[in-house]
């Protein structure tokens, strides 16, 4: 079964190479990409089942034993993330095929997309700090290309900000790796877990803070979030959706993984993380309220919701981490769904500015439903996945008496509702003020509000957030087991170095 750990990384890279060779034929490219991503979903699901039954699985690349060779490890948390990521990548690719624009006009779209898929899977499954750097670079470089695909002025301008900020973070990452290697003599995460504990306190805190900064830029937590709402909205909508869903979560995953695995329990920066979480939540949602564009409102909300995940981590209890895991999974699904709907709104209304849209509850009732379900899920309305994730989080905060951050999280939920209702009222409920700027071509029966291939993946994600709400019990149990693994990494350590 151990081959399942590396296949989600290897297969997309092979697929990317194949799809470059098949550049002359778009249908052949699509067949390759859909096959690869479909296989990815199946493999990730099998991996999750395997890991949940028998504990973490490790693979030593090239057969070199652990501290020397490059290790790939899957435990419950990374397998869960890999599965959700694979499902999102497949759904968004189908949406991109249905949308006129991004995917149809660029020969390289599929290969770049697959490279990003490989990078995301590798980041979740690697057990080596330097390999984590390489995976994140792989994923980011692909995203630089995707975000500036159209080459328009606004894309180049915001893409530039994104690339420069990401590169500064990468430079800090290399510096961090140098310092880690100089002080411990290893970059294997399982090996580091023991060696970092032996370091002097000051050095260890310096490494912890530097790690928090490096991954905090990728995850867009409070003082380091400013690049995100600027750069995401200008990309083609499927690209925005996949970046919004996955890339920041890789940062969150890296923060959770490094803070729990590498640093001994008594030295974890719990209070710092809780303060950062509260600030991230507040600043993000206030930014969302100030904006007047659908995609920018949604982008600011990503920042706000990253705060919830960091809050779960900052509690450093099993229930807190379980809530963080659950919240991350829920947020990936709900946010990707919302951005896909945002793309459909733009497609049907010709703009994503609130002042230029209106009356869509009549002209596109399907979109209204597709928007409302993930939006209410994000706020945390009962039958949906957001409710169980928020309930778990608030419950965990109350259990460890962190009432201040709990109050902030509840207020921010209310403000999230306000900012989403702003979209709902001006896009769907208010009367259409003017004839649409560019009327959608109704020629091929767009009574759904968009092409079928765009609507179906969006509907699947909306359905998924309902299903996750209904399957709350098993899902929460799985998150609890994942959180126990995170706080007690002995199984992880023995899997890597038996």
């Amino acid at each position: 079964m151990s081959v399942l750990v590396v296949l989600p990384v290897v297969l997309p890279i092979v697929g990317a190479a194949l799809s470059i060779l098949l550049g002359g034929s778009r249908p052949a490219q699509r067949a390759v990409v859909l096959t690869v991503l479909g296989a990815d979903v199946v493999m990730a699901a099998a991996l999750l089942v395997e890991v949940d039954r028998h504990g973490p699985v490790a693979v030593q690349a090239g057969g070199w034993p652990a501290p020397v060779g490059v290790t790939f490890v899957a435990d419950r948390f990374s397998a869960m993330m890999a599965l959700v990521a694979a499902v999102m990548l497949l759904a968004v690719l189908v949406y991109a095929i249905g949308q006129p624009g991004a995917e149809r006009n660029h020969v390289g779209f599929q290969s770049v997309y697959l490279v990003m898929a490989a990078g995301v899977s590798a980041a979740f499954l690697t057990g080596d700090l330097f390999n984590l750097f390489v995976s994140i670079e792989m994923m980011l470089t692909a995203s630089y290309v995707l975000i500036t695909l159209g080459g328009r002025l606004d894309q180049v301008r915001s893409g530039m900000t994104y690339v420069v900020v990401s590169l500064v973070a990468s430079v800090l990452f290399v510096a961090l790796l140098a310092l880690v290697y100089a002080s411990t003599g290893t970059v294997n995460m399982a090996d580091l877990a023991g060696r970092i504990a032996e370091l002097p306190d000051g050095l260890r805190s310096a490494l912890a803070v530097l790690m928090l900064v490096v991954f905090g830029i990728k995850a867009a937590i409070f003082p380091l979030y400013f690049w995100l709402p600027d750069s995401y909205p200008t990309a083609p909508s499927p690209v925005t959706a996949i970046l919004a869903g996955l890339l920041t979560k890789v940062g969150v995953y890296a923060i959770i993984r490094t803070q729990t695995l590498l640093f001994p329990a008594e030295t974890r920066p719990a209070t710092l993380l809780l303060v950062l979480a509260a600030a991230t939540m507040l600043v993000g949602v206030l930014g969302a309220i100030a904006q007047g564009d659908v995609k920018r409102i949604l982008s600011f909300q990503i920042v706000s919701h990253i705060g919830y995940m960091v809050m779960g981590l900052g509690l450093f209890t099993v229930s807190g981490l379980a809530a963080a895991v659950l919240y991350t999974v829920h947020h990936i699904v709900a946010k990707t769904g919302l951005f896909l709907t945002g793309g459909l709104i733009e497609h049907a209304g010709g703009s994503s500015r609130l002042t230029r849209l209106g009356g869509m509850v009549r002209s596109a009732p399907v979109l209204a439903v597709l928007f409302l379900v993930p939006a209410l899920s994000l706020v945390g309305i009962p039958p949906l996945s957001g409710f169980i994730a928020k309930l778990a989080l608030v419950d965990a905060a109350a259990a460890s008496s962190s009432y201040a951050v709990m109050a902030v999280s509840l207020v921010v939920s209310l403000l999230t509702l306000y900012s989403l209702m702003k979209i709902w009222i001006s896009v769907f409920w208010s009367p259409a003020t003017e004839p649409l700027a560019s009327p959608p071509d109704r020629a091929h029966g767009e009574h759904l509000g968009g092409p079928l291939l765009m609507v179906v993946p969006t509907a699947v994600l909306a359905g998924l957030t309902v299903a996750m709400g209904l399957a709350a019990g098993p899902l929460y149990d799985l998150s609890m087991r994942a959180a126990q693994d995170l706080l007690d990494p002995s199984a992880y350590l023995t899997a890597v170095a038996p």
Partner: protein
Amino acid sequence: MSVLLAATAAGLFAVGTYLVLQRKLSRIIIGLGLLGHGANVLMVGAGRAGRAAIVDGGGEGALADPLPQALALTAIVISFGTTALLLALAYRSWLLTDDDEVQDDVEDELVARRGLPDEDLRGGPDPSDPDDDPDDDTGDDTGRGSHRATDAGGTAGEGR
């Protein structure tokens, strides 16, 4: 780590940071390159001199630790690729704007204008709700206007 390597890394970081904070894209790109070099020098310096490679054998003392060098090589390759991409982006930006300067964020200006007191808006050329502006109009208006004002007939024009 030798003092010389540490000082080199520090110097590269200092110059790189200064250049990244400039307003011209070409300087930012050079600055990022220097920052990357600084990190790589730090990486090479992180190895312990005199430690043998993985293979068993004699010659301890005359060898350098190979791992950080391998890591630095990987990092160099990655930064080579991203720098090429950045240069392409900067070139496209120059083609589109005739300018090498980082453009302002249009949406930020819209939000900022909404926050101005009413009397400031009343005297302005466009007192109506800023959201009514067509997107493409605000798109290149701001960037270019400020460029012409500050940098009249600058290097970009001569370059053509």
